[in-house]
Structure formats: C-alpha cells, structure tokens
C-alpha cells in the first residue's frame, strides 16, 4: 500500500483524493486540514520536505509539497487547492524549519499567504515590489526600479530617474 492510501486511511476526513504523479504517490488534502495531515505525514516518517511549489491556474491556486522519507526511502506528494481570490494556507514552519524560506519564496513570487508563518515577508524581491511575478496576470510591461534609502533598505518605484544615467 502506498503512503497516500495509508494517509487516507489514517485521516479519511482530510484527504480528498489520492493518485499518482508519474511515479510518486499523491494525496490531495483539504486546505483546512493541511497542518494536521502534515503532522501525521511527518509521524509516518516523511522527514525531508523537498520543495514547496505554488502554481497559478488562473481560476485556482495549487500548493504542492514534495516529501521524502530517509527511513523508508519513499516519496509522497501533498497537494492543496486554494481559492484564487484569497489564497491562504497554514504554514508548516512548526514542523519543518526548512519550510520557512520555501514558503517565503512562494509568498514572494506567487502570492500565497501562509497563516502562522513567523516572518512572512518577501525574500527574493525587495519589500514594496508591486505584484507577484509568477502569477499569470503579472504586469510585465511596467518597469520597476529600486533605489537605496537612507538606512540602506530598498525603495521600489516606477521612476528610475535617480538611478539611470542622463544621456
């Protein structure tokens, strides 16, 4: 029996469906139950949180957690489906410290909020950047510039006159 089925048996209320993602077992979790399911999964021995991926499907968001177990040498994929208007899901930082940066990155680039995250700020782009680039509706035409403020922090604006060289 693969781990996704196992998880469904243990928590029948929170697993919506199971399946396979190429060769990896996949379980779709209800978004309210993610933290409980993840705790259960960690208990099952999946100690390595490999990656968190956020995907914008224009009508919905999906967050995918790829897990691996060092003990059992098994893979497991967890998937949460989020509403497009207000994408928010529980943070897994309490279980995996490594989730901290991965969630921040997902927040930064895709714009998914993680409830309970200790420090949910942008990580790759400067604070104040307009929009989340990996969303399909991101405006690629507006140039945004960064300048340094008094205290050494970044200031984002669409006006690059301080930065650009006068020709």
């Amino acid at each position, binding site marked *: 029996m693969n781990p996704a089925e196992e998880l469904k048996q243990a928590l029948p209320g929170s697993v919506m469906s199971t399946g396979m993602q*190429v060769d990896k077992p996949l379980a779709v979790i209800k978004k309210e139950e993610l933290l409980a399911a993840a705790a259960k999964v960690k208990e099952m021995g999946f100690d390595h949180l*490999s990656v968190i991926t956020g995907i914008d499907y224009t009508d919905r968001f999906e967050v995918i957690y790829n897990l691996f177990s060092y003990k059992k040498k098994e893979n497991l994929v967890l998937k949460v489906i989020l509403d497009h208007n207000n994408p928010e899901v529980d943070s897994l930082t309490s279980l995996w*410290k490594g989730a901290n940066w*991965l969630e921040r990155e997902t927040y930064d680039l895709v714009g998914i909020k993680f409830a309970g995250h200790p420090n949910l700020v942008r*990580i790759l782009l400067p604070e104040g950047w307009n929009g989340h680039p990996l969303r399909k509706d991101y405006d690629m035409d507006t140039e945004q510039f960064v300048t340094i403020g008094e205290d050494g922090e970044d200031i984002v604006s669409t006006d690059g006159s301080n930065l650009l060289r006068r020709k």
Partner: protein
Amino acid sequence: METEELLINMGPVHPSTHGVLRFKLRMDGEIIKECTIVLGYLHRGTEKLAEMKTYLQFIPYTDRLDYVSAMPSNYAYVKAVEELADIEVPLRAEYIRVLVMELNRIVNHLVAIGSLLMDLGASTMMMWGFREREKALQLFEMLCGARMTFSYMRIGGVREDLPDGFIPKLKEFIEDMEKRIADYEQLINNNEIFLMRMKGIATISAEEAINYGMTGPTLRGSGVNYDIRRLEPYSIYPDLDFKVCVRSEGDSYARYIVRIDEMRESLHILRQLIDNMPESSIIATQKYGIIPMTGAPYTAQTYFPRIFTPPAGEVYSRIEAPKGELGFYIVSDGTTKPYRIKIRSPSFCNLAAIPQLVRGLKIPDLIAAFGSIDVVLGDVDR
C-alpha cells in the same frame, strides 16, 4: 558588563559572500548574536522566463542556475522533461551524461574547496584547484564548445558525441588529478591553523540538518548516509560501483573532507565509464525525433525536435547535484511551452541553515561555515 551592540552589514559586495549575498549581523564585539540573510540580489526571474520559452530554449537557462556545475542542472531539467514525456534515452547518451556530470562534480568541488580556502586566506589552494579546473574545462570545451555554460544535454540525449581524442585526454586528466588531490591533502589537510579554524565550528546535527532540508555533502557531513544516486537511482548509476562518502562530525571540517573524498569517488566512476562506454546512438528517436535528411550523419542536429510538445501533466524529478538535491517541478499543459517550472535548488535550502549555524560564533567562523556549505548565488536567487 553592558556593551553596546554593533550592527554590521556584510555584502552584497563583499569578498567572501561568493557573489551578491548580504548578511546583516548583530554583533556583541566580535561575536555574532544574530545573523539575518538578505537574498535576491541576483534574482533574475528564471522561473518566469521559463514560461515564455519553449522546452528546448530553456536548456541554456539551466546552465546559468548553478554556473559552477552546469551539467547537472542541464541534466536535472532534461530528465524531468523526459519523465514527463516518457522518452527512452539511448545507453551511450546516458553514459556520456553521467561522465560529464561526474567531471563537473570534480570541477564544482575544486571551486568550492578553493574558494573556502581563499576565504580563510590561503590563496594557493585556489590557484592549484583552478589549475586542474582549467584542464577539466578544456575537456568540456572539446566536447561541447563552451567552458562553463554548456547547453549540452538535449531532450532525449546529448548534443554531440564524444570527439576524437577525448578519452585519452580524460584518462590523462584522471591520472593527473590523483596526484594533485594528494598535493592538496598534503598542503592543507593536517595544517594546524586550518584544523583550528574548521574543527568543531558550525556543527549541525543530523536531525537538525534534515529538518532544515539540507542535502548533498552538507548533509553527508552530518552523518546521514543519503545520496539520491544510491537511494533513488537514475540513469546508469545502479550499474556503477561507488561509495557514498559520509562523515559523522557535522562540522565545517567534515563537510570539507566529504568533498575531497567525493572527488576521489568521481574519479573512480569516471574510470568505470571509460571502460564500459557502449556504442549506440546519442539521441532518442522513437517518439519526438524527425526523419533525418538522407545521408546525413546521426547527430542531435539532424534529430533536433524543433517543436516539442510533451503531454499535459506534472512531474517532480530530482538528482544529486554536487551541491545537493536539485529538482525540477514541471507543469505542462500540452503546449510547446511549460506552464510552470519550479526549481528546487540545493544552495537555497542549505543556506537557510546558516543563521542557526553561526549563532554565537565570530565573523571568521561565519566565513568558514559559509564557505563549507558551498553556495552559488545563481542557484539561490535563480
């Protein structure tokens, strides 16, 4: 005694941040009380660009993720697409792929060790490391015409076959490398100052390392016997004989020694590959290839799938890159361009543990710890 805290800003342009990374340090004298890492000074938006490129056009971009070891990045991407489209790769192509990846692993570790020692103040090691790197790069140049950004892998195979005279030169390189590794070890391994700087510094336990999602030599330095080449074998690794190098101490020195040992193992793998190199085509033709022009030789150029459309679906595929677990999460919607590509880069996840590693240490220790983690900023910021 009450002392005033000192705020120090290291980077983004600093000699020992291996590129553009910024540490914000809250210091008590010379002791780091808190280290905050600010990323994103090299964020180039590769994942967004991937949505605008065809599957083939994205290959050169994977070179520029981890620019010290581009072949594994190439391969990780190509492997993910092949898994998505279920393409079977000819055996010779797989052998060549593994050969270049292992060669690149040596190059990566040479750069890693060299820049670590450079940060510690011993520039000689870096010079010697780059001397051997140059020889490896000449091999790469013979093979694919570029030194760092190869764009050598193709979906279903590799771009070009091994050129004449490649294998003898490779053999020469392996012979030479054996001697040089001995030189490095004599120079630095037992150096008292080096031991003082590295042993017992920035220790991380196995549980913590796993919890942080650390992978690669960094994790193996903490005593976790984990190598994707062994546990989730891909390509031809199941047929190869190699040892997973593990140290149990979990300090900077252990991570350094793991790298030195891995170079030896890579040489061992290279020897096996040379001995068993099979003869076959170098690119898959069964599904997406086009019919070659009559009389044209059997190369990637003639079998080049200009319009490549994998079936719709999602795949996460990962390999053991020199720095750790490198994964590509690809979502295809059945068009010529990927819908979404997410890159799981080893440097990004390994770097996340630095603030924990260096708390209570000093600035020189931060540099040693950071060097021993081996981070490339192109891989972190993507």
